[in-house]
């Protein structure tokens, strides 16, 4: 018996008697003896709650979180402020502990949340329909690829290099499965290179993939790129940052077929990368090929308004090998955080926040570009994140600069060269509403010192910290 298993010795005896067996071992009689583990698992002994807490606390203390340093790390996940109502609501047993709402009569809470979430995502993206969540951003991109493949059966995907490297890689991974080739189109001046795009397009392209803003933080001019693709009959998939959509033209008005994205920035924790949620929205015509749960409004036998999971004939539990996706458990709780966050921001708050980020990002870009040797990696409009080039040799230098900044309790950003050999000394810097002007000024100062020190160290061949 453990603190979680309420079966005492005397319970056990009574129960065995009711079953009509002499021992628990008998219940496992079907397992051939040679397959039974005859030793205890090689794991440490169990601990009391207080001891586990202390263990987990001490492990947490060995991480340097954004609670302790001034962080400009972004690159797909952002240290935005999560309103306290979200913690409270997500902590409520009624949202935290049930499973997928298979029994709608006792799951109206969760179902209505999905319906509200779908509405909010449609509003944000300008798309017609949204599902109730997929795992996260990069796999949402891959899922959009599967939709495209189911739609037109063509063999090629075309991906802008502005799409998140993890999304590009995930798309490749999945594509090996469904037998697609994936080609990339490079960037020019920070955005997808339109000429190369046009050249790469063809009638065998199932779908094209763009990011808005792209990984370098630059706002893409989606419309012409989308138009070009549609001319070839390719589906247009855009992976958008939902917060940036507070200020940017929604993909739904730009000729986009499927708009997906990473939902973390909508009220979800960093959590070292997950769980968060992916959103998946599309034009109406793609509805019956969408992956995942979808909630719909209906009435009960007494005429009361209610919500149900609908269009389930798309799904694995009904359609099995003919399903439009294999997804089952998705990210309902994280999507709840998303819709609560969007409601918290509200119609006016979302653009206000998006504008604040755009202003701070612009300010920060200038502040960093003013550092000796540092320049903006591109001059495109940005919403919350931007890239600079540090004027140093390679990615190792950038990583040493980051380490220097960490000593001053600043996380200056992400070393772009880790994913883009073409930007070996790039640094990707994100602001959030938690990073004040003073924080940005402090970053400029610390980064300036670190870059200078690194330059000196490289020059002298040494590596003094």
């Amino acid at each position, binding site marked *: 018996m453990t603190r979680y298993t309420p079966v005492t010795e005397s319970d056990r005896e009574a129960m065995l008697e009711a079953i009509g067996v002499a021992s628990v071992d008998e219940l496992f009689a079907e397992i051939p003896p040679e397959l039974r583990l005859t030793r205890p698992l090689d794991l440490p002994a169990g601990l009391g709650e207080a001891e586990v807490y202390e263990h987990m*606390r001490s492990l947490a203390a060995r991480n340097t979180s954004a609670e302790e340093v001034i962080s400009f790390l972004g690159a797909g996940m952002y240290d935005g402020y999560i309103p306290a109502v979200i913690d409270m609501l997500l902590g409520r047993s009624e949202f935290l502990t049930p499973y997928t709402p298979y029994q709608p009569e006792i799951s109206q*809470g969760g179902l209505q949340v999905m319906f*509200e979430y779908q509405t909010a995502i449609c509003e944000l993206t300008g798309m017609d329909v949204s599902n109730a969540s997929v795992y996260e951003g990069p796999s949402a991109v891959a899922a959009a690829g599967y939709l495209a493949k189911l739609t037109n059966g063509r063999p090629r995907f075309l991906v802008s290099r502005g799409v998140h490297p993890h999304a590009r890689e995930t798309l490749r991974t999945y594509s090996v499965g469904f037998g697609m080739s994936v080609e990339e189109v490079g960037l020019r001046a920070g955005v997808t290179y339109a000429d190369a795009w046009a050249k790469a397009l063809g009638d065998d392209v199932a779908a094209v993939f763009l990011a808005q803003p792209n990984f370098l933080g630059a706002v893409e001019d989606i419309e012409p790129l989308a138009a070009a693709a549609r001319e070839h009959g390719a589906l247009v998939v855009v992976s958008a940052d939902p917060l940036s959509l507070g200020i940017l033209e*929604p993909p739904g008005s730009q000729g986009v077929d499927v708009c997906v994205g990473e939902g973390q920035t909508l009220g979800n924790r960093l*959590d*070292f990368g997950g769980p968060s949620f992916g959103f998946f929205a599309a034009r109406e015509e793609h509805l019956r090929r969408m992956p995942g749960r979808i909630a719909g409004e209906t009435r009960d036998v007494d005429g009361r308004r209610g919500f149900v999971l609908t269009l389930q004939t798309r799904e694995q539990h009904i359609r099995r090998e003919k399903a439009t996706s294999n997804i089952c458990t998705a990210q309902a709780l994280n999507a709840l955080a998303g819709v609560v966050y969007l409601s918290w921001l509200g119609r006016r708050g979302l653009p206000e926040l998006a504008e604040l980020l755009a202003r*701070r990002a612009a300010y920060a870009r200038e502040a960093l570009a003013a550092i000796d040797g540092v320049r903006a990696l591109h001059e495109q409009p940005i919403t919350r994140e931007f890239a600079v080039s540090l004027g140093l040799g390679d990615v190792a230098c950038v990583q040493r600069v980051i380490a220097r900044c960490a000593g001053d309790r600043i996380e200056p950003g992400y070393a772009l060269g880790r994913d883009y050999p073409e930007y070996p000394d790039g640094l990707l810097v994100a602001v959030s509403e938690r990073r004040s002007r003073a924080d940005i000024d402090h970053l400029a100062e610390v980064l300036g010192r670190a870059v200078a020190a690194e330059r000196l160290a490289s020059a002298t061949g040494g590596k003094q910290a």
Partner: protein
Amino acid sequence: MSAQEVRTIFEQGRPGRRAFEAPAADVPERSLDELIPPRLRRREPARLPEVSEPELVRHYVRLSRRNFDLDSGFYPLGSCTMKHNPRLHERVAALPGHARLHPLTDASRAQGALTVMWNLERALSEIAGLPHVSLQPSAGSHGELAGVLLTRAFHTDRGEQRHKVLTPDTAHGTNPATVTMAGYEVVKVGTDERGGVDLDDLRAKADSDVACLMLTNPNTLGLFDPNISEIATIVHDVGGVLYYDGANLNAVMGISRPGDMGFDIVHFNLHKSFTQPHGGGGPGSGPIAVSEAIEPYLPRPVLRRHGGAEGNGSSVEFELDHERPKSIGRLRGFQGNYGCFVRSYAYICSLGAAGLRDVSEIAVLNANYLLARLRELGVTELLPPAYDRICMHEFVLSGAPMKQQLGIRTLDLAKRMLDHGYHPPTVYFPLLVDEALLIEPTETETRETLDEFAEAIAAILSEAREDPEIARGAPYETPVRRLDEAGAAKNPVLRQAL
């Protein structure tokens, strides 16, 4: 539960209300046009709600009260392992050192997180009986996809092109769906009269074009397949890979290991066996454990431990290794659902080896006890077990005789349970069983609860004998009653018109 008619959040509030107040604009004011050209900007704001914090809180608290949940009552949803979610896990996952850690934080400043992942990997490896683990997949079906793609990579690396994946007809829907997504053809294998894999059928279908067999053991009938070693041999003999769908692992932790049964790849559902709360449909986490042969293809990055012995002085004991030339690549962003890892690792720390074994023993004991009680109360006369054997952590009843004799379907029985304050078991799955009812009590329920549940079913049946209309019209006590699902699918209203 609250039966008040509820408005959506979009039907509340007034223009100008707000819960959010933006921080002061502290950077120099500049025209927005200068920053982002109007052409690229949004003309109309998204029509999000406009509510104050009190309205926001009240709306969602009220909504929550229209949900049934595990902390309110018994939730024997078969195949889903609705076990108690320890609250300690929410506490430790919320520690800022875990919760506010950026996924791209340099390994030197994330050793705590990497330690959590390492220790969890090691524990899962030991539980599975397979040496290597990737924590990356986001849920069970994501793990399945990883598994089938690993299978493909494995064969491809050997210069082989195989086209078929075998799944038993009892398989969960995600198995065949995954197979298709991964570009294979599904070949169904039959079930024998004892509820296991039909060996003859398997032998007939296992050929050199078979990439993989996906199996759950215990299977979705709640039965352990005693022929598993032979099954493994048949598949391995044709060069196939054996995939273990770990959804039912709760039955065998510390008792029997998939790796020892001959499986090459195993997925875990941390949201089932390892207490990650189900969240109303996620988040989940679906780590995989694999054999040496499969290891080179694992999703990247993989976690590496440096320097052998602990405490070797270096601050960077653990690192993420991206240089994995044979890897199938990423399945998602970053390192997986770390928040789930924290919870499941805490769970393993709490229980230890003995506790985990206890979990499975009690899960199986509870299931068999509930079945015995149902038998004793005569319930099984109308709802006989699909296979009359000692079950593992769950069991399947068939409502076919009930339907015939009382005129109520399994669905009606399930709906009437709602009025008794229970979440019904899984219904109409596995597909193999007519009018199926798949019951998984889990180990965290008391005997008293099982007794009461058995009595409630008996009461519903005797009520139905008197008047089947009651069950057919159920539920009555819920916030809404039976909903028009056909109408919802026919004329889909999937978002609020604004």
